[in-house]
């Protein structure tokens, strides 16, 4: 069943125990929604000397959107914003690949587990919700896209 390729254990782990989830307290806080299902995320980013020193997010959503936000937070914290954006680009390409890309595990680490999502076009937006919120908040924070 295709389902297991979508719902890998890593995803359900992050879903059950999301990282960096909490009340977003940074100065640059954004609120994104996925209007077709009503999923919402509030996220704040703290940049210190060009580095992502903190990401905190809160929200409601499906396992994919929650796990993806959690994985994303792990990935970007501690990186320069350039590096973070590079990961984001890699991840976006993977999501939009309709199952044709496998993704670079070196770069994407746990996010590789989300590669199955690309075969379910209606879920791609779920996976990208947190990432887009991060990008938006970082840019408002002064990071260059």
């Amino acid at each position, binding site marked *: 069943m295709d389902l297991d390729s979508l719902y890998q254990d890593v995803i359900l782990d992050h879903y059950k125990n999301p990282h960096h989830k909490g009340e977003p307290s940074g100065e640059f806080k954004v609120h994104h929604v996925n209007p*077709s*299902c009503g999923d919402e995320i509030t996220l704040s980013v703290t940049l210190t000397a060009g580095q992502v020193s903190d990401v905190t997010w809160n929200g409601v959503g499906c396992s994919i959107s929650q796990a993806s936000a959690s994985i994303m937070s792990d990935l970007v914290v501690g990186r320069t914003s350039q590096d973070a954006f590079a990961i984001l680009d890699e991840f976006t390409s993977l999501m939009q690949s309709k199952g044709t890309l496998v993704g670079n595990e070196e770069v994407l680490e746990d996010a590789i587990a989300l590669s199955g999502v690309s075969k379910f076009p209606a879920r791609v937006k779920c996976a990208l919700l947190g990432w887009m919120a991060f990008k938006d908040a970082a840019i408002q924070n002064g990071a260059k896209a």
Partner: protein
Amino acid sequence: MPTILDVASIKRDFPIFDEKMRGGRRLVFLDSGATSQKPIAVLDAERDFYSRRNAAVHRGSYFLAEEASAAFEGARQIVANFLEVRSDEVIFTKSATESLNALAVSFERTKGVLNIGPGDEIVVSELEHHANLLPWQQLAKRTGAVLKWFGMNPDGSLDLSSIGSIITPRCKVVAITHQSNVLGSVPDLAPIIAAAHAVGAVVVLDGCQSVPHQPVSVEDLDVDFLVFSGHKALGPTGIGILWGRYELLEQMEPFLYGGSMIETVTMTDSTWAAVPKRFEAGVPNMAQAVGLAAGLTYLKGVGLANIHQHEMELTKKTLDGLLSIDGVKVIGPQDTKNRGGVISFTIDQLHPHDVGQVLDQYGVAVRTGHHCAWPLIRKLGLMGTTRASFYLYNDDSDVDVLLESVVAARDYFRKR
């Protein structure tokens, strides 16, 4: 279970059921609340129009133009017969959404009693689809009118306890759904309509979820306007109906301006054609009108009362099934009283998207999320629901697959 409809033979009229879903599964289509599938009769009617009668209606005096006009006006007559109304009261729009926006904008532009301006009151309910909330909400914002609404009870009925303070003499329009597209619940309309008329307000009924599924009489309901969408009634996409009482339509300003809706035009001034043309600017959606007429004819052939009874049998079986599955909650009416064939439910703490994904593996097509009725979902304190909705082409075995897949969805996430 015996049923009043010969679903096997009905299914054969709908080519989509020959398609294979993910994993080679057959299609268990339980999303007719969003859009219906199309019988061959509808596809053929559209194709026949394009292949044999296509020309701009009302504008040419050549043979094909006469044929096209006859087809288009014939379609209007079929819709009128279906609704048991005068044919010049039937307006073709692109969708129920456009029909409702058209009313809101026309009331804004119309002088006289139908005008909506500062201090006037518009009444809706918490059950409404966005299409019957936003046009009124935004009209109120633009004009300084006041939007009021009936609250929803947890069982999907409306709280009518303060009807007297909701519908006051300042009320101009009550716009309300005939059936919730989320919960399937049917609000108690009679007291609302009576109260509206008692204060001289007009009543707009959103029949999207009722007109395709059961006999609906505007006469018996005593409403002033009715809207529904063709694509939910076996018809093509890109067509909707706006019905209104002639005496009201006659007073109303156009919504769209352009060709075929005018009487005279100069650079600085224009006057309008009679109803219904006044509300059909431009070359109309001719083929879609003809297709919708074929769809309604098909429905009439099967019988709306039969369709309703059939759907209620499936609804009963589904409710019984869902209510007996541990972890599953039915949202809205728990039995078949005051409801139609639309059922919302949740499973454990699962997000509806995740539920829908598992169901999809079984070929089950359901809608998940807020169903374009976000205020209702918020009121229930949910993130969304999973919604199954029935139509004439569904049968017992569809319900069986649904129930099987619901258990599978629960277990898939429970065990991990």
